[in-house]
């Protein structure tokens, strides 16, 4: 009984939020172009779903996000692992790694579009860049956190380098790594949008721009809602991955 109520709590809170929003719009009398009501947004949502445009643009952004994640996570884990194992490598790469985080993506996105062209590549790179540092840091922390006692044990069992990596380091650092992936997944959506806001002919960021330029604030909201849904879906997938791969953690405790 209790479990089913708790599952509905999330949906209930969203419904409550929507009602509060509708009430606020009616109360304040704000015009549609400043704050559309849930009904306005819902209407726009249905319209853009019906003509297929919303799904098309969401698909474009999703592709950028997934490829960007793939690139960013791969680079981050490979470089992260290497940096975790070698302090000197860490010192050599440190300035560039920190720069990758500190440089505001919004500022260099136009440059990236000029260098990499107007197509999907620039958006994938921007996504990868934004995901890179958080996942890298988590990889380094995760790998370095492996207990020396476990290394000794692997040694005493005469494990090869590959066995140590795949049977000890990877599973041991997975919790922290997946934590970083959760952050990365949501950041990747931001990266795709930043890229699209600079220059795009399709995608949710493009819809955002069009909505803004045509004073269609409902469209802006629809695009934002889809972005949130996208980020939530990715976050949910990572959570599922955690449940699947970290089953051993739960049974151990």
């Amino acid at each position, binding site marked *: 009984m209790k479990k089913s109520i708790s599952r509905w709590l999330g949906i209930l809170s969203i419904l409550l939020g929507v009602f509060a929003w509708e009430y606020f719009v009616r109360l*304040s009398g*704000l*015009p*549609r*172009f*400043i*704050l559309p009501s849930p009904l306005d947004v819902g209407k726009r949502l249905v319209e853009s779903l019906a003509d297929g445009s919303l799904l098309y643009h969401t698909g474009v952004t999703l592709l950028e996000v997934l490829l960007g994640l793939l690139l960013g996570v791969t680079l981050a884990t490979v470089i992260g692992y290497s940096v975790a194992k070698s302090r000197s490598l860490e010192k050599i790469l440190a300035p560039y790694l920190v720069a990758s985080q500190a440089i505001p993506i*919004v500022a260099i*996105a*136009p440059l990236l579009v000029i260098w990499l062209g*107007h197509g999907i590549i620039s958006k994938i790179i921007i996504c990868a860049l934004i995901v890179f540092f958080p996942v890298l840091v988590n990889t380094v922390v995760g790998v370095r956190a492996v207990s020396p006692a476990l290394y000794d044990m692997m040694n005493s069992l005469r494990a090869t380098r590959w066995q140590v990596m795949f049977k000890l380091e990877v599973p041991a650092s997975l919790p922290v790594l997946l934590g970083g992936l959760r952050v990365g997944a949501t950041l990747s959506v931001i990266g795709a949008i*930043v890229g699209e*806001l*600079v*220059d*795009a*002919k399709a995608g949710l960021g493009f819809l*955002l*721009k*069009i909505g*803004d*330029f*045509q*004073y*269609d*604030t409902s469209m*802006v909201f629809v695009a*934002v809602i889809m972005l949130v849904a996208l980020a939530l879906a990715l976050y949910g997938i990572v959570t599922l991955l955690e449940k699947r791969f970290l089953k051993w953690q739960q049974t151990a405790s």
Partner: protein
Amino acid sequence: MLKKIIIPLILVLALALSACGASQPKADTLTKIRLPLGYIANIQFAPLYAAVEKGFFEEAGMEVEFDYSFETDGVKLVGAGELPFAVVSGEQVLLARSQGIPVTYVAAWYQKYPISVVSKGGLGIASPQDLKGRRIGLPGLFGANYIGLRALLFSAGLKESDVQLESVGFNQVEVLATDQQEVVVGYAANEPIQLKAQGIDVTELRVADYANLAANGVLASEKIIADDPELVRAFVSAFIKGMQYTIEHPDEVYALSAKHIPNLADLDQAVQKEVLATSAEMWKADRLGYSDPQAWENMQDILLEMGLITEKMDLSKAFTNEFVP
């Protein structure tokens, strides 16, 4: 770029938290007016600088401060009643009104739509038809550049899918000069002149030669027109005086404008003077500030064809000549 999401959000918060309405100006002080221009400080805004420097605005009881934020933000602020006026391109008025934003165009500035499609002379792009299948660079898929290009294409029976559009930001001169783009879209009084000054031979297709469209002018909120029509009349009158003065005394106004344009002295003076002269050509009319109803009909047709608006609207509410002397 994220600014486009943040500004409407801030607007919501500001409106929700603020007390109602703007306070009435005292009779003995100048009404402060913040005027969004939609572009960076540039010699093209000379009439406005003239109206400030020659005291036309002051005579009319107002103190005008210029704001160079984005055109669409200006429209929204006027529509929300936060600002009384904005300088915008004609299509913005129809786009805004189609979304229920209560704004009205009260004075025309440019009588001719100021957009040109520019290409290097060697390519032989002599008519809109020659644009078929070409890559065209423009600041983005918004604003006068985009609308002007579409109107030009439309006049030759071409659709957006017949060309390849690429967003290059406000860097049209650089991308054409370095051959990153073969064709770019820009303001007739700006980019072509700058390119010629660099010694590049260019062919220009002026949108105004192919379509009569409502161009840049002064926008006011329905609210201010209802609450304070005298303010609107005074503003329009001062603006038109500024335009008239600039047409008659270009060199004097050029010198006065330097105060408002931070780096004017660093730019090529001959080029900038030509920019001013070319712009002035597009403002001239027997009755300065007059809005041509046909130009508005044409603009509505173009926007309908582009699918940017879905139904015809009452144009008599979109623009008015009642404040034009």
